[in-house]
């Protein structure tokens, strides 16, 4: 097996990659959408709801964090697979009830693979485990980068380092699968792979509704490229560019946009959401340059939050609640945030460039993630409070479950998990431990226990409220 010296982390990889050079990532033309059709393409509402209805609505969010995040979220999927929950006196498998997975960066590998191949992801010694979780992907990336054949390709201004990553993920995991394959089986969960629009600084999600205003056809877009964009750590890789063809497919914007443009004083958040959508319709925007989804939201929670709080998204959970389609809403945030001790505080020496870049790249992400989690808590509590004050509102049970290393009770064990580096190469024992810990922390969650054992939750009133 090829080996390269283990690097200190993704940032060290970044500098190695920068030394080789390469410009914007743009090897493959994004297909043009000939005619806008709101009933075609990869959209939540087009998925089959026969076996997985919306009454128990389960949203998972998978954070970034390289293989650490992928293994941790994998462990949560394993626990869900082994759990049943009762609805109307009938047992339902909880994994089969997952409606949406919103993912970022490392978590996008697990989400996309599960979305494409379902339970095949759990095959011991299968492709996901062998070629990704327990594989030194980082070494493969470096091998590709230092291959002289690729230097010639990288000399092209339209071929960037991110294209090498995309090719590798295609070979290792996703073959030639496109979003047409995700659409094809019409099976939930709806997979939301998130990247960041580096010009606008906003989240960019690989769904057809995001591609509509740029008149691009997501169905022919390779899954490997979407995952590469989502895990496109700044500096380590070049931004990934996709084509934009605004105004060429008969796109009509949703009705809420015009309304929201008058909302600046009353609801700035909604106003800026509308403004952001409008920017994709600007005729001179010919490309969208994408970075790691973690730059805009490192836990993948912002999209689901908007869906729960607003009717302005095509899979609005708020609409589903108002239409009395949802009785239990479960949001499970899987956050593989780490806390690697640098030791910089022990020395008077000025931190080096690598340490400064690391601080710039990660500190805002962690702060923003914390805010997102608080916003979810606030959203659920306000809804719960409103339901108690107004019985005429549809009564939905709210379950908010957070799975993160901070919840490990044992100090030494918690420190060990928090110290896990961000890398695409972790030792087998660490991957195993992350899988086990993801499953264990989910099962230990008091809110999760309340979801699967409602009778043990105490009074009927407590059960009816869930755990907002």
């Amino acid at each position, binding site marked *: 097996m090829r080996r390269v010296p283990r690097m200190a982390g993704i940032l060290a990889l970044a500098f190695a990659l920068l030394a080789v050079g390469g410009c914007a990532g743009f090897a493959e033309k994004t297909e043009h959408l000939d005619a806008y059709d709101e009933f075609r393409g990869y959209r939540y509402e087009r998925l089959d709801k026969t076996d997985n209805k919306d009454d128990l609505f389960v949203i998972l969010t998978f954070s970034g964090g390289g293989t650490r995040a992928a293994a941790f979220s994998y462990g949560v999927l394993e626990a869900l697979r082994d759990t049943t929950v009762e609805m109307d006196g009938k047992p339902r498998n909880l994994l089969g009830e997952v409606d949406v997975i919103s993912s970022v960066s490392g978590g996008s590998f697990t989400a996309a693979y599960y979305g494409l191949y379902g339970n095949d992801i759990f095959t011991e010694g299968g492709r996901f485990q062998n070629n990704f979780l327990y594989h030194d992907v980082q070494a493969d990336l470096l091998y590709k980068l230092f291959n002289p054949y690729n230097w010639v390709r990288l000399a092209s201004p339209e071929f960037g380092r991110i294209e090498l990553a995309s090719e590798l993920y295609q070979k290792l995991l996703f073959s030639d699968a496109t979003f047409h394959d995700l659409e094809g089986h019409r099976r939930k969960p709806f997979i939301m792979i998130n990247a960041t629009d580096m010009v606008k600084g906003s989240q960019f999600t690989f769904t057809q509704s995001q591609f509509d205003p740029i008149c691009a056809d997501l169905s022919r877009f390779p899954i490997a490229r979407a995952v590469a964009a989502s895990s496109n750590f700044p500096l380590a890789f070049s931004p990934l560019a996709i084509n934009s063809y605004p105004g060429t497919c008969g796109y009509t914007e*949703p*009705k*809420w946009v015009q*309304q*929201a443009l*008058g*909302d600046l004083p*009353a*609801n700035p958040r*909604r106003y800026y959401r509308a403004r952001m959508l409008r920017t994709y319709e600007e005729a001179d925007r010919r490309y969208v340059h994408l970075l790691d989804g973690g730059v805009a939201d490192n836990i993948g929670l912002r999209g689901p939050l908007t869906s729960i*709080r*607003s*009717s*302005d998204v095509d899979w*609005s959970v*708020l*609409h589903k*609640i*108002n*239409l*009395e389609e949802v009785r239990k809403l479960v949001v499970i945030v899987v956050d593989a945030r780490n806390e690697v001790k640098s030791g910089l505080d022990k020395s008077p020496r000025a931190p080096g460039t690598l340490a400064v870049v690391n601080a710039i790249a990660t500190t805002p992400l962690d702060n923003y993630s914390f805010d997102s989690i608080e916003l979810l808590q606030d959203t659920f509590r*306000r*809804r719960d409070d*409103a*339901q108690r*004050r*107004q019985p*005429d*509102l*549809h009564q939905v049970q709210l379950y908010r479950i957070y799975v993160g290393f901070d919840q490990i009770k044992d100090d030494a064990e918690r420190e060990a998990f928090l110290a896990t580096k961000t890398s695409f190469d972790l030792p087998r024992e660490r991957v195993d431990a992350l899988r086990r810990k993801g499953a264990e922390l989910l099962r230990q969650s008091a809110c999760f226990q309340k979801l699967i054992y409602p009778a043990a939750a105490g009074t009927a009133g407590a059960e009816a409220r869930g755990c907002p």
Partner: protein
Amino acid sequence: MDEYVKVAFPTRRQVWVDGEPGGFTNKIFQVETGNHVFDLGPKKNYKPEQQECMVKGTLPEEPMIIAFERVGDL
């Protein structure tokens, strides 16, 4: 912010918010603060045809009331 609306109509039917089904008549439902267009969907046996409202400052106990009147089937 969260706002609360009740659309009054003689019978129960779907309420459309900004062009999408988003609630039921005579039942309080939640919307986001801001300008919204309310109507009762494609079967146009009601008036006015739609109502554009700024929904702001409501409470669960004091929702904004938006009334539609039934007219003969068109």
